[in-house]
């Protein structure tokens, strides 16, 4: 067993720029997620993919788009960042869709100036 890897760890950018975050899991899990940790430190689901297919898409702005090339990878692109996008984004994976076991990456901290 290894883990969930996210890059970059930090990213500083300006309003209107495009950013991409990468996530890879080497656990052989079928389901991957993107969570956003808000200013109150709450983790809120954004997207969930199962075997490359989108199964959960919470109410997030359209400038956010997940991309999955295979079940081990789930990237997140933000087309035109806004100040309120400043947050920590966490990638996670689980063996199935039920959230019985969840493994999180260390997060990508985005700062929008």
């Amino acid at each position, binding site marked *: 067993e290894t883990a969930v890897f996210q890059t970059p760890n930090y990213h500083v950018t300006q309003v209107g720029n495009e950013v991409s975050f990468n996530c890879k899991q080497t656990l052989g899990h079928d389901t991957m997620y993107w969570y956003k940790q808000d200013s109150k430190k709450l983790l809120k689901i954004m997207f969930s993919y199962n075997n490359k297919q989108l199964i959960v898409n919470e109410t997030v702005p359209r400038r956010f788009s997940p991309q999955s090339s295979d079940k081990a990878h789930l990237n997140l692109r933000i087309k035109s960042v806004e100040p309120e996008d400043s947050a920590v984004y966490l990638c996670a994976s689980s063996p199935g869709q039920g959230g019985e076991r*969840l493994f999180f990456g260390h997060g990508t901290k985005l700062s929008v100036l």
Partner: protein
Amino acid sequence: AQSVTQPDARVTVSEGASLQLRCKYSYSGTPYLFWYVQYPRQGLQLLLKYYSGDPVVQGVNGFEAEFIKSNSSFHLRKASVHWSDSAVYFCAVSPNSAGNKLTFGIGTRVLVRP
């Protein structure tokens, strides 16, 4: 919007003592409530979940939680802790039972002293 409050960032208890971890949720619909545990260097593992019925839910390793709707609470309890219960405990709420739309609290770190 749903949210979860875990007011205690850290709790220290002695081995054999009882433990209660507080969790309050906010959700306008029917909440589905979860407790997860994260042991050092491991992923989150589901301890128990509440969907409906008996408000006291039994979980693994002697843990139980009680859903009190009037108080919007879902506190976790264990009658007698063991040193191996030292971990971080997360409360979560979801709009469905599938567990794929979770909102997590910030977690409570529990240290059990021998």
